C-alpha cells in the first residue's frame, strides 16, 4: 500500500499502532486485502497508475474516537478521507482523491438517535443508510417518510453533504437537514444551529441558531468531519398521484418549461419531475431510430403524432391530501392547456400506508420514499459501473435546447455517441433549476476510459463557456470543475483555501476534495 505523502514507513507504523489503541486493532485496516476494499469500484482509472489507492483505513465507533483519530492524523500529518457508508458510487465510491490518503470510515457509527413523527425529524449518525432509517420507521410504525436518492444504501449524511437529491417534497437533501455535529481538524467538536445551545430543545426544528450560518461550509468540503446530522422528514401524506403531460410540437418546450416552472415554484407540483424528449424514449423504438437518422423536426413531430405520443413528455407528481391533489392536477391541466394539442393522462395513484404486497408490485418505489437499488440495473447486466456528468441549467425551454445541442455536439466532435441515457428526462431534483445527467460507462479498458475522461473534460469546459456548471462530480474531475468556477480570478477557490488553511493548517482533511487543496499540497500542484 502507498504511504501517506511525506511520511516514513516507521512513522506510519507508529501512527497505525496508536490508532489501533483507540479504535481496536480489528478496525484499523492496513493489509492489502482489506485496504483494497476501499478502492473505487467504479473507477475511471481501471488498470492505470492514476487510480487513487488508500494507504490504510480506520473505522471509529464514536465521536470521541473520531476526535482522537483526527488528533493523531494532525500529529503525523496524515491526510484522511472521510466516508459515511462509502457508497458514493459514480462519484468516487469509498476511495480518496489521491493515493496515500487514509480512509476515515464512519460506517460503524450507525445509530439512529431519534425519529420524531410529531414534529417530523430524525437525528442520525453517518453510517445510517436510507434502508436503515426506512426499516426503523416501518418497524416502529411511525408516520413519517424519508426522501431517498436512487441508491438506497447511501448515507443520509453523506448524500446530504454531497448535496444529493431525491423525489418527494423533501428532495433537496442538504436543504432538508437541520443541525450538525462536526469534529474540526483540531479535534474540537462543534454543534451548529440550535445545537450550540446546551440542552437545546429545538436542534432539529430551527436551522439557523444565532450568528453566522456555517453549515454550508461542511458540504462538498474538507473543513470538518460531520458526526451527527438532523433531517426534516415528510409527514406521511394521504395520497400520491402522477399525471402525464404530452406536448406535441418541438417548439412547445418554451411554453411547457414556463408553465412547469410556475407549477413547481408555486408549489402546485411538489415532487421531482423532468422533461423527456421523445427522441430519448426507452426502450428505443426501431421506427424512431430510423426517423432520427437525418430527421427534421417535422419528421419527429409526424412520428409522435402517428404514435399518439408527445414530442415532450412530463410526469407531474403530487403528494398530499387526495382532494387537494385532484384540485392541483386540474389546475395544472388548466395552465398547461395554453399549449395547443396538449394531452393529459392519469398515472399512478396511491393511498398510504401501502401494504407489503402493494410495495412489491412497484418497480421503482423510490419516489414514494421507499429505498431501492433498482437504479443499478441502469447500464445493463454487463455494466462495470458508471459515472455522471451533471450540469445545472436554467428551467427554460431555451436552456434545454441550447444545453442538449451543445453537449451532443461535444460528443459528435469527439466521434462518440451521446451520453444522453434513453428514458432519462432532464430532471428537477432541485428547486428553480434543471439538472441534465449524462451517463458515462466505466470500462475495464484503459483506452475507453481515457476517451471517456477526454469527453467528460470537454463537456465541463463547453458547459462553462455557456454558463452551465456541474452540481457534483466524480473525484477524478473535482479539480477540473473547481477550475471553471473562476469568477474574479478564482475568488471562490481562494476563499475556500483561506478557510482551509485556517481551520486545517496541517491539511489533513480530505486533500483535493472538490478541488480544495491545503497549502502544503497546493505548492506541489502549482
Amino acid at each position: 500500500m502507498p504511504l501517506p505523502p511525506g511520511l516514513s514507513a516507521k512513522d506510519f507504523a507508529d501512527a497505525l499502532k496508536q490508532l489501533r489503541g483507540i479504535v481496536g486493532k480489528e478496525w484499523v485496516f492496513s493489509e492489502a486485502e482489506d485496504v483494497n476494499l476501499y478502492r473505487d469500484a467504479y473507477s475511471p482509472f481501471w488498470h492505470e497508475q492514476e487510480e487513487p489507492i488508500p494507504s490504510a483505513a480506520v473505522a471509529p465507533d464514536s465521536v470521541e474516537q473520531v476526535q482522537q483519530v483526527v488528533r493523531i492524523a494532525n500529529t503525523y500529518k496524515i491526510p484522511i478521507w472521510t466516508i459515511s457508508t462509502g457508497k458514493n458510487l459514480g462519484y468516487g465510491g469509498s476511495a480518496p482523491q489521491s493515493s496515500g490518503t487514509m480512509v476515515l470510515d464512519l460506517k460503524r457509527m450507525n445509530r439512529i438517535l431519534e425519529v420524531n413523527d410529531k414534529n417530523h425529524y430524525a437525528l442520525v449518525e453517518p453510517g445510517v443508510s436510507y434502508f436503515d432509517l426506512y426499516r426503523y420507521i416501518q418497524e416502529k410504525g411511525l408516520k413519517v417518510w424519508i426522501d431517498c436518492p436512487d441508491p438506497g444504501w447511501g448515507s443520509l449524511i453523506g448524500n446530504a453533504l454531497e448535496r444529493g437529491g431525491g423525489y418527494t417534497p423533501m428532495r433537496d437533501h442538504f436543504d432538508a437537514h437541520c443541525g450538525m455535529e462536526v469534529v474540526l481538524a483540531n479535534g474540537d467538536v462543534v454543534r451548529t444551529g440550535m445545537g450550540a445551545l446546551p440542552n437545546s430543545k429545538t436542534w432539529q426544528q430551527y436551522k439557523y441558531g444565532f450568528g453566522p450560518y456555517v453549515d454550508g461550509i461542511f458540504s462538498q468540503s474538507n473543513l470538518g468531519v460531520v458526526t451527527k446530522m438532523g433531517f426534516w422528514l415528510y409527514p406521511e401524506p394521504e395520497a400520491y398521484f402522477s399525471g402525464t403531460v404530452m406536448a406535441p410540437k418541438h417548439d412547445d418546450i418554451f411554453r411547457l418549461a414556463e408553465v412547469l416552472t410556475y407549477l413547481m415554484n408555486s408549489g402546485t407540483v411538489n415532487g421531482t419531475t423532468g422533461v423527456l424528449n421523445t427522441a430519448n424514449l426507452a426502450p428505443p423504438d426501431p421506427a424512431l431510430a430510423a426517423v432520427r437518422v437525418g430527421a427534421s423536426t417535422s419528421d419527429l413531430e409526424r412520428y409522435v403524432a402517428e404514435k399518439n405520443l408527445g414530442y415532450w413528455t412530463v410526469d407531474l407528481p403530487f403528494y398530499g391530501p387526495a382532494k387537494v391533489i385532484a384540485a392541483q392536477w386540474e389546475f395544472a391541466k388548466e395552465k398547461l392547456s395554453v399549449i395547443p394539442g396538449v394531452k393529459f393522462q392519469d398515472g399512478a395513484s396511491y393511498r398510504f400506508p401501502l401494504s407489503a404486497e402493494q410495495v412489491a408490485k412497484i418497480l421503482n418505489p423510490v419516489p414514494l420514499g421507499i429505498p431501492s437499488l433498482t437504479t443499478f440495473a441502469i447500464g445493463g447486466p454487463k455494466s462495470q459501473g458508471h459515472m455522471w456528468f451533471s450540469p445545472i441549467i436554467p428551467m427554460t425551454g431555451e436552456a434545454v435546447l441550447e444545453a442538449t445541442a451543445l453537449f451532443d455536439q461535444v460528443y459528435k466532435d469527439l466521434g462518440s455517441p451521446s451520453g444522453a441515457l434513453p428514458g432519462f428526462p432532464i430532471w428537477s431534483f432541485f428547486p428553480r433549476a434543471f439538472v441534465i445527467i449524462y451517463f458515462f460507462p466505466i470500462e475495464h479498458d484503459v483506452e475507453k476510459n481515457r476517451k471517456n475522461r477526454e469527453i467528460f473534460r470537454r463537456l465541463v469546459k463547453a458547459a462553462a463557456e455557456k454558463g452551465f456548471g456541474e452540481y457534483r462530480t466524480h473525484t477524478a474531475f473535482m479539480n477540473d470543475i473547481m477550475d471553471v468556477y473562476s469568477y474574479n480570478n478564482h475568488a471562490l477557490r481562494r476563499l475556500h483555501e483561506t478557510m482551509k488553511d485556517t481551520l486545517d493548517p496541517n491539511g489533513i482533511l480530505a486533500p483535493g476534495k472538490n478541488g480544495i487543496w491545503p497549502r502544503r499540497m497546493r505548492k506541489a500542484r502549482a
Partner: protein
Amino acid sequence: MRAAAWCRIAALSVGLAAISFAADEATIEKGHQVYAKWCLPCHGAGDGKPGTIASAAHYKGSKPAVLEERTDLTPEMIKGFVRNGVYVMPRFRKTEITDAELDALTAYLTQRSEPRSRAPVMGPHR
C-alpha cells in the same frame, strides 16, 4: 475481465463445498439477517433487482436467477463475489460485512436444508 473473474471464482470453488463446516441454526439465522440487509435488494425475486437481472442474463436459465434459489453456491464463491465485486456489484468492506458475518452469510446460502426465500421483501409495511 470481470466475466473471467466470475468463472474463475466459480471454478475454484467446485469441490470445496464438501469441506465446509456445518453451521448451527443461530449462525444460519444470522446469515439470513445479513442476506436480508445486504443482498436482497439486488438479488431478490421480482422486477427491478439488478443482481437478479444480471444473473438471468448470465446463466440464461441454466441456473436460478434469484440467489436464494441457488443450490450450487459455495462459501468461496460467495466470499469471492462479496470481497471482489463483479460487474456493477461493488466490493463490500469489513465495516459493512465483517468476516464473521460473511461466514454466517455463506452458511445461510449453502447449508439450508432446501432452497427457500425467507427474507422479507422490505421490512413490515403498515
